[in-house]
């Protein structure tokens, strides 16, 4: 799960940064007689940190931009064989047609809304968010997803849409092959 990886990395980085701040804070009350050289080496360290940050930045962005979820050319236009499902949000329910699929099938959800902004959040049978797109009046967003496991998936609303926001969900059945 992406979420777990992101959690691990974030907590590690946040923890290290917190430790640096805590360390500096703990040692701050003891004055340093010779501040000049210390500050000079700190600025040298900053240059290295800057270089490291740029390397990480370029690397991660390069990777991430290779995995964009945006569909420039939906299957129907490009002539690919792919299952189409229409998903429409309306205060406060989802209509997904069709809503049963089989494992391994790649589905393109044509997501739109009849009234206000909604969020089409696809949850797997273990209630992990696996994909999402916004459902907007006047626009149709195409979300492509390949079902990996059998069971009952759920669609939750992921954009606040009024007082029934939390009850706005529907089920999608995915059968084993």
């Amino acid at each position: 799960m992406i979420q777990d990886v992101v959690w691990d990395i974030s907590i590690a980085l946040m923890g290290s940064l917190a430790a640096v701040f805590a360390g500096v804070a703990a040692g701050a009350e003891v004055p340093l007689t010779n501040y000049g050289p210390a500050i000079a080496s700190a600025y040298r360290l900053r240059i290295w940190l800057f270089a490291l940050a740029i390397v990480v930045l370029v690397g991660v962005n390069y990777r991430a931009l290779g995995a964009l979820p945006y569909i420039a050319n939906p299957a129907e236009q490009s002539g690919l064989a792919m299952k189409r499902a229409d998903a429409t949000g309306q205060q406060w329910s989802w209509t997904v047609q069709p809503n049963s699929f089989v494992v391994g099938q790649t589905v393109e959800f044509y997501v739109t809304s009849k009234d206000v902004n909604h969020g089409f959040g696809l949850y797997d049978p273990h209630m992990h968010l696996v994909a999402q797109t916004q459902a907007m009046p006047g626009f149709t967003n195409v979300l492509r997803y390949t079902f990996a496991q059998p069971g009952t998936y759920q669609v939750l609303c992921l954009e606040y849409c009024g007082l029934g926001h939390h009850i706005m969900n529907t089920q999608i059945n995915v059968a084993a092959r």
Partner: protein
Amino acid sequence: MTSIEAIGSRSRISATAAVRAYLVVCGIVLLLMMLLGLTMRLAQAQWIDVEPNLFYVIMTMHGAGMVGIAGLGGAAVMWHFVRRYIPVSTGIFIANLVFFLIGAVLILGAGFIGGFAGAWTFLYPLPDHSGGLWSANGAAAYMAGLLVIGVGFLLLHLDIARGIISVYGGLGSGLGVKQAFGFAPEKDGPPPAVAASTMAAISNIIGIVVGAVVLVLSLVNLYVPSFTFNTLVAKNLIYYFGHTFINVTIYMAVIAVYEILPVYTHRAWKTNRAFYLAWVLSTLMVLTVYPHHLLMDFAMPTWILVAGQIISWLSGLPVLLVTAFGTLTNVYRSGLKWDAAAGLVFIGVAGWAIGVIPAIADGTIPVNSVMHNTQWVPGHFHTYLLLGMMAMMLGFMTYLAGPKSPSRLAPLGVWLYLIGGTIFVLAFLAAGSASVPRRYAVHLPAWLPYDRAGSIGASLVVAGALILIVRFLVSLRSPIDATP
């Protein structure tokens, strides 16, 4: 300190009184809004019963109120320090507070009388689609409240801009553009407070007028529903305004760090070329980074979203490498004596820097696909707003209260705030990585442990904030000291 002598001591007293008035409003509203936040967490934890209707009203008020006082608190910090370097009008500063209070009354009325629960972002066309639960007048009162508050802030930032231009000739010089690009010696650059204020003025003037446009359009739509406009354009305008306004609050509050920490460490804040370059770039990035709110709007042109991701990453660098690094080197074995004020501003920088990390993670498109609008989002923004921006503001408050006020409890307040805040944001982040959606009045049983941990953290934060704010309010009994 020559600049201070230029201003008469009488105007200093009234100016200090005005800053105190700002902080009194901020302190009281902050406590109330924190209680609303705690109520939401307790309701999600199923420790108390709150009707979803009321929950969403509370959510809307919590959002609008917190954004409002973040802007107000940031303005108080900025104005207090920047007036050492530029001429500013106390009348306009006070007028902004008056506008704010009028707007706040309208907004509170819209929520608790009109039942408006369209979230603080009033995402078009939701205000006009209440499902019968709030009236057009309720929504209009909310938006009119925001407009009134916007008028005040616009005037304030225009006045700051006027002051900067009158001393430095132009906003470019106020920002240190020449120093940033090596056209002028570093030592002639503007002080940090001026550079930060210039950035805040530029960003907020643009952000607020964009917000005013979308507010007016939404109001027209509310009363003439046949007058519709493009929902995606509206979304862009709203997030442009919302992002800029809330982001800039941190850049205003950080002036407290630049001005207060050196008093403790006896080391001047170094303004070198990297510092000015960081502020120039931050200005550009604050004005262009908002598309990271729209990464799940597939209808957006892809290049804008890609730019949004890259700018999100880049915008973390000045924060981490200049302000956080500058703070660490300034404090490092300086021999300072920690007290509540120094501790809070230091925590503020740490919270800001640390909060940047989960924010950048969420600004990465494949991560955003599975994290957007989960509790990861309140998780990261509470890190840099609660533990960052608000900590700086509370630090400023504590600093103004001075050492004379009762201070035995102050360290306890700081520790409660820090520990409670950490538990609170970690509960959000953990829930977010477990796919718990944000802005849900009712949670599944599986999500309750996060909510309960979050509630405990939130209670501690409220207790800590209560101590610090009451301490500040008590300190007001002593007369204003004309000598700083």
